[in-house]
């Protein structure tokens, strides 16, 4: 019995392999499994090669996994094009369409001998039982159900729902194809069967969605009532979600003419007193940076979501990377700081997005949510979240007394000043991007400029002590530590488990708050650490460098970073961590747990 299986499948445009994956994860979610699905496509806009990975497990799934347990190739050209996304190892079972005419020992998988390689007449079965090769994906689902005992009922229900509107005939054909796949599996059992364990009987059907939709839902839950933005991959689904839903809550979406207008409208809405958001990816972030600075100096709450993709420039729009951290923290001219938060999974995107609104409102500042293509577009099962229990904050509005002789930018002890909005009698003020005095009047005084800069930075200080915006895993006083963020964090959690299973005393810090750098929180974490890795998907190792700006990192803490579209595997990180620990041991310390 396995409690965790990673499926990877590839085919041509018409093969419906991604829709097979969708059916698989939907069935798994309905059954109470935990699961993650990622997709990858060729460069053709439509009809080119496509692939997906589905990881299904009885316990929490932290990342899309490493090498495949099960590979499904409808044809080899397409499969091998996704080499990096669909790595096959010595423990992979490979199922492929015998129609390819390739013999098992000839399959084009260089440098690796899979555990089992099964040619299966997938196309023939489809044609024979369903009368059309379009049913190949139903055969595949039948094979999956048959070989690995995954959610048989769920899969069939899914088929039915999906094909309901295509008519009885299509549905029957698909069911026959499914059955044929199942039967084929039954007739040709694996040498070493690897059925998936059933989820705990108590496991509820799980919600299923992706990070972008969750982000949109979180915005609504946090009270966001205005979204201004411009489409860009891989963030557009946030706008798409809100364009369906937000009106129901009295809000509105403006698809603007460009990213600048999108954030401009959002800043306007915030000025008018409404919680507002914009979302984009790297190129849009670059364009928005001038108005981000405006929001900083005008002290207007605003949430800006950046679903990171490969850069620079147009880069690789459909691939994940974590190379926009510098930009998030340091773009826009002048001393213009803004908090940066990052979610680590689809589920976590809900919480992080709500926190972003809370921080924006409380500190009257733009806040960046740094998501990434993987989290944003992967499908994931969600644990239930008690939305009602999450605290929602509102900006500090002036009371009656404060509206007597109101000064918008009053220098308070906290640096946060009561903020009025059009419609409030007595609260009129001038918002501006020009440096201003407490009343908002333009100034060119160096002394005032100093005090206002001071105010704008000082008000963010409490964030540096917000340990609730960090999560620590592993052994508290471990000498070996990992730091990782965003989609990488899930890989590192699994790596940590590997390492600890092998006896290493280690821990992991996952910051949801990336900027300002919370010196105290890191200080506490690093107190016991003598060696470690900051793991991230960027050529420059941006978080590692950013930590150095504010912290004296322990000497043995290094950067483990590489360009996007080259995801880390848990096992790989675990090995690097072991190496670091060993280097440390050679230097006289010990990172191994005493062998009791």
């Amino acid at each position, binding site marked *: 019995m396995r409690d965790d299986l990673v499926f990877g499948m590839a085919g041509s445009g018409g093969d419906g392999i991604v829709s097979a994956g969708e059916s698989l994860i939907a069935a798994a979610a309905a059954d109470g499994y935990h699961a993650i699905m990622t997709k990858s496509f060729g460069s053709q806009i439509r009809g080119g090669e496509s692939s997906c990975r589905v990881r299904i497990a009885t316990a929490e799934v932290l990342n899309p996994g490493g090498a495949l347990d099960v590979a499904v190739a409808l044809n080899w050209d397409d499969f091998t094009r996704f080499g990096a996304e669909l790595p096959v190892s010595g423990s992979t079972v490979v199922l492929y369409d015998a129609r390819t005419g390739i013999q098992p020992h000839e399959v084009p998988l260089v440098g690796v001998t899979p555990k089992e390689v099964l040619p299966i007449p997938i196309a023939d079965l489809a044609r024979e039982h369903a009368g059309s090769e379009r049913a190949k994906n139903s055969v595949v689902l039948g094979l999956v159900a048959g070989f690995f005992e995954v959610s048989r009922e769920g899969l069939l229900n899914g088929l039915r729902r999906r094909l309901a509107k295509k008519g009885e005939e299509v549905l029957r054909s698909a069911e026959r194809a499914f059955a044929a796949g199942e039967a084929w599996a039954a007739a040709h059992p694996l040498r070493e069967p690897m059925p998936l364990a059933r989820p705990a009987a108590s496991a509820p059907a799980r919600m299923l969605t992706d990070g972008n939709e969750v982000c949109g839902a979180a915005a609504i839950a946090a009270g966001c009532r205005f979204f201004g933005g411009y489409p860009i991959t891989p963030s557009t689904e946030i706008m798409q979600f809100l364009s369906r839903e937000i009106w129901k809550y009295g809000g509105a979406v403006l698809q603007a003419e460009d990213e600048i207008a999108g954030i401009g409208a959002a800043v306007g809405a915030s000025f*008018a007193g409404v919680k507002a958001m914009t979302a984009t990816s790297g190129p849009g972030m670059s364009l928005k940076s001038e108005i981000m600075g405006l929001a900083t100096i005008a002290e207007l709450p605003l949430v800006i979501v950046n679903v990171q993709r490969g850069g620079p420039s147009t880069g690789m729009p459909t691939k994940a990377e974590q190379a926009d951290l510098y930009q998030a923290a340091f773009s826009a001219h002048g001393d213009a700081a803004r908090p940066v938060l990052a979610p680590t999974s689809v589920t976590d995107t809900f919480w992080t997005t709500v926190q972003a609104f809370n921080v924006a409102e409380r500190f009257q500042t733009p806040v960046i949510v740094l998501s990434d293509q993987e989290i944003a577009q992967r499908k994931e099962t969600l644990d239930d979240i008690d939305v009602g229990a999450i605290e929602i904050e509102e900006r500090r509005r002036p009371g009656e007394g404060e509206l007597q002789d109101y000064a918008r930018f009053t220098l308070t002890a906290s640096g946060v000043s009561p903020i009025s909005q059009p419609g409030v009698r007595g609260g009129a003020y001038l918002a501006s991007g020009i440096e201003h005095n407490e009343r908002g009047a333009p100034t060119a005084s160096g002394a005032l400029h100093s005090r206002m800069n001071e105010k704008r930075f000082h008000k963010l200080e409490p964030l540096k002590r917000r340990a609730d915006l960090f999560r620590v895993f592993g052994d508290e006083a471990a000498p070996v530590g990992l730091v990782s963020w965003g989609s990488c964090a899930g890989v590192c959690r699994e790596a940590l488990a590997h390492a600890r299973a092998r006896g290493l005393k280690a821990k992991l810090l996952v910051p949801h708050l990336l900027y300002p750098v919370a010196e105290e929180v890191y200080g506490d974490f690093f107190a016991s650490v003598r060696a470690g890795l900051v793991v991230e998907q960027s050529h420059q190792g941006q978080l590692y460098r950013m930590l150095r700006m504010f912290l004296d990192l322990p000497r043995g803490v290094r950067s483990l970073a590489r360009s996007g579209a080259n995801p880390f595997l848990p096992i790989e990180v675990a090995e690097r961590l072991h190496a670091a620990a060993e280097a440390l041991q050679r230097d006289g310390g010990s990172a191994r747990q005493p062998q009791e």
Partner: protein
Amino acid sequence: MEPREFKSDLKPIWCPGCGDFGVLQALYRALASVGRPPHEIAFVSGIGCSSRIPGYTTAYGFNSVHGRALPIAQGIKIANPDLLVLVAGGDGDGFSIGGGHLPHAVRRNLDLTYVVMDNQVYGLTKGQLSPTSPRGRQTVTSAHGSLEDPVNPLLYVLAYGAGFVAQGTPADMPGLTALIEEAIRFPGFAFVNVQSPCVTFGEAEQQLREHKAQMKPLVALGHDPVDRLKAMAFAAEYGRELHTGVFYRNPQPGPTYEALVAQRQLELGPQALPRERILDLFRKSGGQ
């Protein structure tokens, strides 16, 4: 209400004699006639001499960044359609760096009033070529004369489909006041191009005295502002003739964007889940 109720304590930084003083006065008067209290007004601008104007009023002001007044104003109006939202700025702000926002603001047809103080020059930055500077004009950035035709704001905005398009000059204060008032009252996007002389960097032929002499009120020419093609023909003379008055007023203005938003909110509102149950949306895809 009284014009002075719209006047703030901030002293304008404008040069003595700048046309923008006249625009400000006309605006005070127009607002007084319209009668909305200052705190129900949001007044947005970009950057430029002219864009300082919101600070000189008692309205909620937003002196934003160069060229972005219109997007910001749209966000404000959608967020709170009850506000009276004014937008103002210069020719550089509106037709150069901000020119990309204009067609979209117009076609969305929010109920905004956009007043441009067109002085054919960049005033605040001290006299550079502006998009409305005539061909051949010598300025500090066109030392040997500009090589391109100017934009035609009136014709452009008509082509974009604006419901109200007018031009005024502080050389005719009652006329300007009336145009601004009418623009504010117009239920939809309204554009007023004001020939507002820059006494410091503007051309000698573009000063108030010359305006007084050259001004050709469209009414006097018998123009009927319901005729859009005719309006375009008059507008095409921008830069050669100083027409004042209403070029075009849509006699049957369509619904505003914010009205359509409100209608949609009303229609869809009942379908909303309680906020706490928003995640239920993802249950149906769970395969049950």
